[in-house]
Structure formats: structure tokens, C-alpha cells
């Protein structure tokens, strides 16, 4: 394999994993931008969607129908989470909201353990998600290409949404000044529910791609993705949507880079090295890549 091919191969790997992180990070960033809530339960939406999809597939539904139902289940679970757990806390201290998100996580994960047992189950991805295209020495996994394409489409759609639609502009307004948004008659509850719906839909999509990638699912599967998404949005600048996306691709790139560069004895500790580099980055840019150094808004 030539150096160029190697580079291209690793670039695709990096963009593919970065795309999954980006779709996850957006959900966190949108909610944080408006509510100052770090919703750690966001990861469990991945689990909800994947289990619903798996159950429907074992009942004999075709993959696409089951996948659509899984994404819908994630979206509804996200909306329910907002309505039941977070809306009553409107105006509460950030710490209370953070603790609530931990409780939601513990509740959902234990519910899943009771319903589905704690052991992992195989996730049978259809053949088109497992195929590999050979181009010269390049091995292009269809799953990587599909993840990249889906992320590109969703990110473009989201950009158009927040730039062109009234509710999208209202979402940006609410994330800049929630009180001013209320005083202008922006329906803040609707804006927040929309942010949850969009983020949860994306989490549902990530869930399917993630499960197909790993090949199995378990009740605690949401932890790693939400941690990575959180790290990505901190690198990018918490609350900033472009920042979350950039942070996600930086994180994906670093992971793949270190995976390739570290001696094999050290690769199990790859994440430790990744996080060490990111901590160093935050020492120089404490507010992240796109985070402003402005004082925190009221």
C-alpha cells in the first residue's frame, strides 16, 4: 500500500468515525446552547433506538422499516425525556439539571437491563452495510461511506434549518439570550422540544450505524458515544453547533492517527493519549476551538 493510499484509507476511517461523533455532539450542543444542560442521557437514546430496531428485525420486519422505527423511537424517547425530566426544571440551577440527566441515564439503563437482560445481543446488519469495496489497495467499507454520506446530508439539512426557517432562527436566538427570546414572544418550550427532537433523531441514526459497526448492542452501549460527543463539543466550544462538528472530526482524526502511530503495546491506551492531547489543547484555548472568550451569558 502506497503512502498516499494509506493516508486516504486513514482519512476515510477518521471522517467516518468523526461523522458519528458529530451527529451525537450536535444533540448535546443544541440542548446545552439553550438550556446550559449537559444531557448525559443523550447516549441512552442510541440504545433505545437500537433495541427497538433489533426487536422489530427479530419479529421479521425488513431492515429499513425496523431502522425507521428505531430512529422514531429515539426521537420520541428524547421528546419524552425533555417533557418529563427537564421541563419541570426550567430555571433550575445547572447542577440540578446535570444531576437529573444522570438520573435519567441510570433509569433508562436499568430499565433496559430489566427488559433485555444485561448481556449483549448480536445486531444483524444487512449485507449492504457489511460489504467492502476494493479500489486498488484501498478497502472501502460500505458502512464508512454510508455514515459519511448520511452525516453530510443531515449536517446540510440542519444548517439550512437553522439559517432559513423561523423556528431554526428562533433556536439560535434562544441559545444567545433565552430571556430576550421569551420577551420577544418566541415559544421557548417549542424551540427546546424541537432541539431535543432533532438531536434525538440524529442519535437514533448514530445508534443504527454504531450497532452495525460494532455488531452487537447492550444496555450500556450509549456511554462511550456520549462521552466522545461530550469531549468533541468541549473541544469545539460548548454550545456552538459548528464547533461541535469540528470538534468531532478533530477527535475522530486524532483517534485514527494515534491508532496508526502508537506502538501496538500502547494502542489499548489510545484514548488516554487522545484525551491528554485534548487537555493540552484546552490549556491554550480554554473555550474550545470556536468558543468565544466572552464572559458567560446570564
Amino acid at each position: 500500500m502506497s503512502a498516499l493510499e494509506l493516508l486516504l484509507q486513514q482519512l476515510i476511517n477518521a471522517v467516518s468515525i468523526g461523522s458519528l461523533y458529530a451527529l451525537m455532539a450536535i444533540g448535546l450542543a443544541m440542548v446545552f446552547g439553550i438550556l446550559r444542560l449537559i444531557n448525559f442521557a443523550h447516549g441512552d437514546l442510541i440504545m433505545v433506538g437500537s433495541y427497538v430496531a433489533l426487536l422489530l428485525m427479530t419479529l421479521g420486519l425488513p431492515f429499513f422499516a425496523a431502522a425507521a422505527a428505531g430512529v422514531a423511537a429515539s426521537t420520541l424517547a428524547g421528546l419524552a425525556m425533555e417533557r418529563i425530566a427537564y421541563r419541570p426544571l426550567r430555571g433550575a440551577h445547572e447542577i440540578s439539571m446535570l444531576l437529573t440527566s444522570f438520573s435519567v441515564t441510570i433509569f433508562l439503563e436499568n430499565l433496559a437491563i430489566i427488559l433485555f437482560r444485561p448481556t449483549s445481543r448480536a445486531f444483524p446488519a444487512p449485507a449492504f452495510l457489511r460489504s467492502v469495496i476494493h479500489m486498488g489497495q484501498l478497502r472501502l467499507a460500505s458502512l464508512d461511506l454510508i455514515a459519511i454520506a448520511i452525516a453530510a446530508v443531515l449536517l446540510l439539512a440542519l444548517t439550512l434549518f437553522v439559517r432559513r426557517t423561523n423556528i431554526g432562527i428562533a433556536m439560535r436566538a434562544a441559545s444567545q439570550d433565552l430571556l430576550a427570546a421569551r420577551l420577544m414572544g418566541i415559544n421557548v418550550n417549542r424551540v427546546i422540544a424541537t432541539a431535543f427532537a432533532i438531536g434525538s433523531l440524529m442519535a437514533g441514526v448514530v445508534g443504527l450505524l454504531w450497532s452495525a459497526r460494532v455488531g452487537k448492542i447492550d444496555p450500556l452501549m450509549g456511554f462511550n458515544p456520549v462521552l466522545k460527543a461530550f469531549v468533541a463539543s468541549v473541544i469545539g466550544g460548548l454550545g456552538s453547533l459548528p464547533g461541535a462538528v469540528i470538534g468531532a472530526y478533530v477527535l475522530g482524526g486524532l483517534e485514527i492517527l494515534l491508532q496508526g502511530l502508537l506502538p501496538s503495546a500502547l494502542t489499548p491506551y489510545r484514548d488516554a493519549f487522545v484525551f491528554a492531547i485534548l487537555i493540552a489543547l484546552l490549556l491554550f484555548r480554554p473555550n474550545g476551538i470556536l468558543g468565544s472568550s466572552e464572559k458567560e451569558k446570564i
Partner: protein
Amino acid sequence: MLKLESVDVSYGHVDALRGVSIEVRDGELVALLGANGAGKTTALMTISGVVRPRAGSVLYDGVDLAKASPFDIVALGLIQCPEGRRIFGGLSVLENLKMGAVRRADTSGVRRDRDWVFSLFPVLGQRRNQSGATLSGGEQQMLAIGRALMAEPRLLMLDEPSLGLAPILVQAIFRVIRELHGRGVTILLVEQNVRQALAVADRGYVLSTGRVILEGTGAELRSNSEIEQAYLSTAPEAKR
């Protein structure tokens, strides 16, 4: 039109308003005056439904607003242009104005009001695609007032619209306030610029530590000796 009846508001153990009664009649320009911390902003936030009174009531056309959310209150036409401008810095001028009109469905009316705002503040029209954060302080204040006007106010509440502006911009803002008043917009004006405010106001109230200590017509308050002593004998800046 709007009546506050012995309104008490407290933040924790701190009383911000104590037995405040204020009335604004249709078409009036009423000034709400007082030192920092007197409760002026709290009064506006109470009208907007952001802060809830502990006792007393806020009546709008005789209807108690106790159960109304800030969203409902905006829909009734009680629009607040908050202190410190609070425009959406990351949104363009046009987007800011659009957010002022966010609950309106009459596209042609919205366009007409936008053109009206651009005629009041031509500089906003020139900068329509610029983001709010890149505007000067005076332009941001104009945008904040324009955004509030886009909400079709029946009662426009202006909180310290001249705060921190150069004298020439203060004049421009007061010119617009006078023009809006002349067009029949009902205005509740909170100001630290007492001289200017009383010059344009039909009536005024003076708050001190959460109570109304004086009320009267603009002319009465202007010639009142306490006001004279407290605000008008020295430059307003020196009192702050």
C-alpha cells in the same frame, strides 16, 4: 389599559416592590423613574410575566395577568424592550427583526412594519445583513427598539433606552420615542435620564426602594422640588 394594583415582588428575602400601584392609559407615555435598584426593571419584568408578584395584581384591560405566561403576554401586545438591549448578536439585523415578529402570520403587515422600522432608523436598513454584534451601541439600541416594534406593541415598555449612549444618540432615541408617542403608541418608559424623560412624558411615577414615592404629570414632576433636588439640580450622570 394597564394597571398594577398594590404589587409586591420579592427575590428570596429581598423585597423588590412593595405595594406598587401604577396605571398606564391608552395612548399615554408614562415615565417610571428612580435610582438604581429602586425596582423599575422589576416592575417591567412583572408586567412581562417573567417575575411573579407575591401579592397584588397586574390588570390588562381589566383582565388579571396572574396566569399568563410571558408568551401569552407578548401575544396580548405588551412588549418589552429590555435594559442592555439584549439583541441577538449572532443574528443579522433582518433576523433580529424577524424574531420580533416571530408569532405574527401576516406577512404583508410584517413587511410593512419592517419598512417602517427602516424609515425610523435608516442605518438599520443599510446594515440589514450585518450581524447584530457588529453594530455600534447606538445602532444596537435602535435594533432593540425596532425588534420590539415588529411585535406590534399595544404597550411598548422601554427599559433605559438611552443608557450608555452618546448625547447625540440620546437625542435620536428620544426623537423616535416622541414620534412613536405621536403615532398613538402607548409607552411605559423607564429612564435614568430624568430631565429628558419628563420632557416627553404625559405622567410619571418615581420609585424608591420598591415603593412609589411620587406621581404626577410630567410638568408637575418637573417642577417638584424633591425631583429637582434629587435628579435635576446636578447632571444626571453625577447622580449615578
